[in-house]
């Protein structure tokens, strides 16, 4: 026990002595949290819009106003020349062009179903899709108001009409703010990356410099070495984790519905996994550069497959099977459920058990490998 304490002390001393590294350990999570928290947004706002209004009547101006005051669009220009459309889209001045043809109003009054053309820059498939949806909704809304006016004039016809109207309620995140979804995810990703990276690089560094030889010949036992090397990062990881949670709750004002104690327990279990992976990487790599690359690769894979940004159900089936191998997937589910839905323990037990199994096997396996490889 005593020896473990000494290694922990030495490790912490090293962290605090290396100023740039310390700054990075504490700064990186902060920068990540704040920049990512604001940058990662699936909200689509301010889509640059050009309206090509060739009819130029009070009706078309009414439509234009609807777009002008929508936060989803930022109206850049109202043009009346069809030939300029190409320029706007190719130069990126507009991502959406709405074309209202000549005689639009006249045809509308005559019930001739005039067309409105939407031209979407589809490069960014999601923004394009969502932006198009917003535009269609705005025009449809306008369209149905005209329909209602017409039906009111003709009450006989309106008796025959039976419409279904859907009333939508959204739970847990009624305003559909993407930040509520992203921040808990970032906290989980950050925890993964920092703890894996620090453990991984920490041990490889001793290998690269050659100080590990000295530890091998000393009376320190392998399990003491492993515990001594990982416990400081459990502490640091835990501090960073709760700091990030606090920032999420008090700075970003994310509702935290669940029980923090349950979350802490799952966090501890999850740390077993990330530290285990860090140990594993450090035992198979010889230089810090290699370790960095492997961890990088692992992180990208993990982040993409965890459902952090891209829902797992939407992936092709063969990829969905891969996600079962990614421990972050389960932790992501747990942290999000606790944060937003306030899920109680009984809803998390399945994912919790899987995490425990992963934790024990990964940590155990890596410790054995490390012992075999260097001790």
């Amino acid at each position, binding site marked *: 026990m005593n020896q473990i304490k000494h290694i922990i002390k030495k490790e912490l001393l090293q962290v605090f002595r290396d100023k*740039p590294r310390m700054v990075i350990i504490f700064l*990186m999570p902060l920068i990540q949290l704040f*920049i*990512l928290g604001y*940058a990662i*947004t*699936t909200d*689509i706002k*301010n*889509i640059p819009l050009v309206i090509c209004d060739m009819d130029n009547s009070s009706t078309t101006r009414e439509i234009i106003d609807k777009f002008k005051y929508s936060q989803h669009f930022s109206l850049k220009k109202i043009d009346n020349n069809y030939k300029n459309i190409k320029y706007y*889209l*190719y130069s*990126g001045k507009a991502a959406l062009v709405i074309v209202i043809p000549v005689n639009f109003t006249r045809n509308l009054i005559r*019930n001739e*179903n*005039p067309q*409105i053309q939407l031209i*979407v*820059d589809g*490069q960014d*498939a999601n923004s*394009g899709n969502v932006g198009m*949806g917003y*535009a269609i909704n705005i025009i*449809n809304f306008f*369209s*149905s108001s005209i329909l209602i006016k017409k039906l009111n004039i003709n009450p006989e016809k309106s*008796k*025959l*009409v*039976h*419409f*279904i*109207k859907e009333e*939508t*309620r*959204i*739970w*847990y*995140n*009624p305003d559909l*703010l*993407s930040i509520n*979804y992203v921040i808990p995810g970032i906290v989980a990703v950050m925890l993964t990356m920092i703890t894996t990276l620090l453990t991984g*690089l920490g041990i490889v560094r001793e290998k690269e410099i050659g100080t590990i030889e000295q530890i091998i010949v000393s009376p320190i036992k392998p399990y003491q070495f492993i515990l001594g090397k990982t416990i400081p990062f459990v502490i640091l990881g835990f501090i960073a984790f709760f700091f990030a949670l606090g920032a999420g709750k008090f700075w970003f004002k994310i509702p935290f519905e669940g029980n923090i104690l349950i979350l802490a327990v799952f966090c501890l279990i999850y740390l077993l996994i990330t530290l285990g992976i860090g140990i594993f990487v450090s035992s198979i790599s010889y230089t*810090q*550069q290699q370790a*960095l*690359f*492997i961890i990088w*690769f692992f992180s*990208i894979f993990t982040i993409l*497959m965890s459902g952090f940004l*891209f829902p797992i*159900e*939407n992936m092709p089936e063969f*990829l969905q099977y891969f996600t079962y191998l990614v421990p972050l997937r389960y932790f992501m589910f747990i942290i999000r*459920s606790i944060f937003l*839905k306030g899920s*109680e323990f009984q809803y998390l037990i399945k994912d919790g058990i899987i995490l425990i199994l992963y934790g024990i096997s990964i940590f155990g396996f890596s410790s054995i490998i490390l012992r075999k490889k260097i001790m």
Partner: protein
Amino acid sequence: MNHRIITIAKKELLHIKRDPYSLTIIIILPVIMVILFGYAITFDVKNVSIGILDRSQSKSSRELVNTFTSTKYFNTRVFLNNEKEIEPLFKKGIIRAAIIIPEKYSSSLKRKPETKIQIIIDGSEPNTANIISNYVKMIVSSYSLKINNFQIKAPIDIRPTVWFNPELKSIIFIVPGLITIILMLISALLTSITIAREKENGTLEQILVSPIKSYEIIIGKVIPYIIIAFIDSIFILVASKFLFSLKIEGNLLLLSVLGLIYIISSLGIGLLISTIAKTQQVAMMMTFISTLLPAIMLSGFMFPIKSMPKILQYITYIIPPKYFLIIIRGIILKGIGIGYLWHQVTILILFGALLILVSLLKFKTRLE
């Protein structure tokens, strides 16, 4: 070319070759990333599981339910007996949305002009929830038209067309971004690490006391990485052409020339970092924070800059990948020429020149 530069470049290449592990990762990583990103990054929402609480239990309500579940968007249904069952199913993540059809649905549909049904959506994934809500609106309104035998037409006929990516495939958007990031990763990260490593091992001193000039060291050291970066880009393009049938609309030669300018400005960042960082770890972390993170998050690679808060939008102006992304997307997807891109090219050149100049000056002061 200068003979000493070539020697240094050869030495650096030897270093790279000697570490086949890292080399494999550098070469294979981009291709794997294309595959992963190509399949995993999709905002298309399909196969949503939906809970159904049919209080009406009539022929018309079953027809409505079938209308929902016969679409490709909602394929799994879970029948519920009461409203209380919704919450546990949301919490376990089994369903994403629920439809509640009222008891009087069938009779109301015959008599009243408007019949309400209730939709409850799990909003914890806002993007998915948004898209589900749009699908529901679409399905309900077209079903409404159908049961009215299409007597009523929408007054305005909306005709959407999509340019540059008609099938709205996410991969088309991601590939140019991946190239931008890989180029940045290799040029900035590897350069900063390679110089920091010589510092850490003490071999830099030996080179510095030799008659080689500092710019020769720098140029010699970065040449191999420029080559690797180029090879990687070609791999990415070829992989996405065959796997995801990406079409290149524009001029590849123009792209290569502008790519080189971008690589040089990224190298500038790497060099600048290496003049400050004394150890590999610090170099890595600094590169990570100052280049990789912004390149991924703030360049418009995946997240639209225009949706960010104003402050972040201003920060994006000093991020070179932002400009290169506009260039590479313009050339690959829109097929535009240099005429549309002068603005971005000038900024990249200015960035590159400034960074290289500063790091050369800094490098020299270390010599003395």
